[in-house]
């Protein structure tokens, strides 16, 4: 059985790199989740989005520039997630695309990052046909919630451990990417429950497929790029990181 | 000698707009050529074809009589340097020196060679004193110069510039144009620049091409091109101010002219002569 999965992983992978659209592989496509899970995931996602809205509203009242700031940074993260990152995978070089949620969680905080991810997913679902409307809740769960919170905590913990800015960014990018794929795998794995399959086995298999096709390397590469980005911004405009609360104050120089 | 040649280039953007519809242009070695045209006429698109950044749908680009496809992109980028309109889009490194070194570094040169090239490029654009400054601390015109230095550090034979004077004050315009003229005359670099400012052209340029709606309407010396005023009007352009004055004088006041003066110097000579002529005519 596992051999069969390997073969299909390869077929799947070839299918992926052959299509120019191998972009948002981590999004679950419209129509795949049954009604029960559609409702569940929406129910899980709603509170987080709600808290995100509350955060934006509160901050906006204190400083009105916050709304356009979330808008432009959200757009920047979206564009970042379109970068064709080259990764070394099964059959040599291929390109894949970062999730970007790790970066947005670091820049905007986890709750606002969920909100931004939700909007990005809506835009992708509608205008790129990546993901879907009924699967929006599920995708918000994996990419928005898991991605944002894991990335955010990775960053904070790394900072607590006094790692340099680069490694903080690296961990945020890598961990959030990993968790996004894990979330997607769990959601797909849950589908076999009650159909005679084993949830753990299916999840592990799907996660394995993701990791073996380019996404495994992508996690590391996304980490490196996010690390580079933070260092670059720190070198050129440290005020930005200070303003967003990534680093504490100007007096103590951040290790690079 | 023709060094770079665009043959019948047609190009369509993703959204279906035809930005170029059969544009052809010959660029001679060592000349300073201006491409003039209204907004959206395809200047930037044509410039991006000249070093293979965009691939034409039909037609081809010949670099030294060989199709661009026969070169590796590294070779082409080394031979044809391009400077875009907004300097803020092109300065990546925190300091001036590092930014200029970006190209040579990617060429895989030795450290000494890189340092030499950076110094040389900076002195060419007259920015040696600013080598260690942060990029953000520079004025707009200085940033432009650093962009040019960054490309010069790769020792291109051809320099392509997109609206190098846009957004600069008159003194800045003069200084950039003088720099380009110097690079052209003293270092033999072929220069092609797109511009919207007609007044610059007769003063600095050897030849000019007029673009309109994705086509090259006419090519020639400023005198040749500007004497066909209908074509200029048709391309939504204007004559240089001096030429406008001379044109009314010729057409409405019947001043006799062999060729139309285009610069302040030419106009002055012409006017002084005319008056002297009238003078002597009458006193005879």
């Amino acid at each position, binding site marked *: 059985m596992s051999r069969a999965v390997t073969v299909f992983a390869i077929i799947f992978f070839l299918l992926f790199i052959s299509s120019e659209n191998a972009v948002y592989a981590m999004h679950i496509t419209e*129509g795949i989740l049954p009604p029960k899970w559609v409702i569940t995931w929406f129910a899980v996602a709603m509170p987080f989005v709600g808290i995100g809205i509350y955060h934006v*509203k509160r901050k906006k009242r204190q400083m009105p*520039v916050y709304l356009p700031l979330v*808008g432009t940074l*959200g757009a920047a993260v979206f564009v970042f997630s379109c970068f064709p990152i080259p990764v070394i995978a099964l059959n040599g070089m291929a390109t894949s695309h970062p999730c970007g949620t790790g970066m947005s969680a670091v820049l905007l905080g986890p709750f606002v990052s969920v909100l931004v991810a939700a909007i990005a997913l809506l835009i992708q679902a509608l205008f790129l046909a990546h993901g879907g409307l009924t699967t929006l809740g599920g995708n918000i769960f994996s990419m928005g919630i898991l991605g944002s919170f894991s990335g955010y905590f990775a960053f904070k913990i790394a900072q607590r451990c006094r790692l340099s800015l680069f490694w903080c960014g690296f961990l945020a990018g890598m961990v959030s990417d990993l968790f996004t794929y894990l979330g997607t795998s769990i959601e797909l794995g849950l589908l076999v429950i009650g159909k005679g399959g084993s949830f753990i086995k299916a999840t592990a298999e799907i996660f394995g497929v993701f990791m073996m096709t380019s996404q495994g390397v992508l996690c590391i590469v996304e980490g490196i790029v996010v690390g580079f980005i933070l260092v670059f911004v720190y070198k050129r405009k440290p005020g930005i990181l200070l303003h967003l609360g990534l680093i504490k104050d100007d007096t103590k120089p951040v290790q690079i | 000698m023709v060094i770079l040649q665009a043959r019948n280039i047609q190009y369509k953007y*993703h959204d279906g707009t035809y930005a170029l519809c059969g544009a052809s242009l010959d660029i001679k070695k060592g000349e300073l050529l201006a491409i003039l045209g209204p907004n959206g006429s395809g200047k930037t698109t044509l410039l991006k074809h000249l070093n293979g950044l965009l691939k034409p749908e039909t037609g081809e680009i010949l670099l030294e009589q060989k199709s661009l496809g026969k070169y590796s992109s*590294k070779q082409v980028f080394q031979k044809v340097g391009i400077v875009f309109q907004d300097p803020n889009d*092109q300065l990546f490194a925190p300091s001036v020196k590092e930014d200029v070194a970006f190209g040579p570094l990617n060429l895989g040169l030795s450290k000494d060679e890189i340092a030499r090239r950076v110094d040389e490029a900076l002195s060419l654009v007259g920015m040696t004193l600013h080598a260690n400054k942060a990029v953000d601390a520079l004025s707009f015109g200085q940033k432009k110069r650093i962009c040019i230095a960054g490309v010069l550090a790769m020792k291109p034979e051809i320099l392509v510039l997109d609206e190098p004077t846009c957004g600069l004050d008159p003194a800045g315009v003069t200084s950039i144009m003088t720099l380009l003229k110097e690079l052209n005359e003293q270092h033999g670099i072929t220069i092609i620049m797109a511009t919207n400012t007609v007044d610059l052209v007769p003063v600095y340029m050897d030849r000019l091409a007029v673009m309109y709606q994705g086509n090259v309407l006419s090519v020639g010396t400023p005198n040749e091109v500007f004497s066909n005023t209908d074509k200029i009007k048709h391309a939504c352009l204007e004559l240089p101010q001096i030429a406008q004055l001379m044109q009314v004088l010729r057409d409405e006041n019947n001043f006799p002219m062999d060729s139309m003066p285009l610069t302040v110097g030419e106009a002055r000579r012409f006017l002084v002569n005319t008056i002297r002529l009238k003078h002597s005519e009458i006193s005879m």
Partner: protein
Amino acid sequence: MGFLHHTFSEVYARRNNWLTEVDVRVKLLYIVLLLAINLLTKNIFIPLFFLSVSFSLLLTVKIPFTAILRSMLLPLSFAVFILLIRGLHEGEKVWLSLSIVGYKLVLKEEGLWNGLQTCSKVLGGISLVILLSFTTTISQLCAGLKWFRVPNTIIDLLALIYRYIFLFLDEVDTMWTAQRTRLGYTSWKKTIKSFGILGGMLVIRAFARAEQTYEAMHARGYEGGGILTATLPPWRKKEYVFVIGIVFVLSFLIYTRHVRVW
């Protein structure tokens, strides 16, 4: 344009045709309800019916077949993946067993059937979403969402993000090109580094833009309120007809038990 090949644009939605002129509220209502039917139905032909109707509707407004197909490519590969996984994993009855390069593959009937059903739902659902997106501009969408009481913060952010995505795509494209002409992408290592710089520039740009935009908004009286007017015309006879239509379709489907509602 390199890496932005997959970028989207509203070119089709900005055209004028009878589908773009349908009221956005009606469209949203239809799409959401039809998506629900698509999900709930046990009948494999209903999603396929949606697929064919969506396709023919899009073709009547002269949207190129290839454009539709291109946007379906990724969901399609996803669907095939699901089909195969289910075919391999679910059920007992062997439908086909074959061996490829030494591996023995057993496709089972029940799994394949279930997979086929999911496949059809993917196709039906995606075609409905595409039908909406190819005929609705973002500003119509915002107005529609506002009418359905979606929180203002989401709508404002949706509009802002959508607007700035295009701007940043252009800017990033220029920067990327500039890096490329100075050989920033000639090896794997350089590429990663150049992307880091590009992303950093993007963040810095986003920050500067936010400040300038805020200044421009402030100068027009913005103090933290909403940013869209989003006025919709009042309901016309046509819209009422459409809404009554969907009610009939629903009751018909429930009556004929193609849709099982728990």
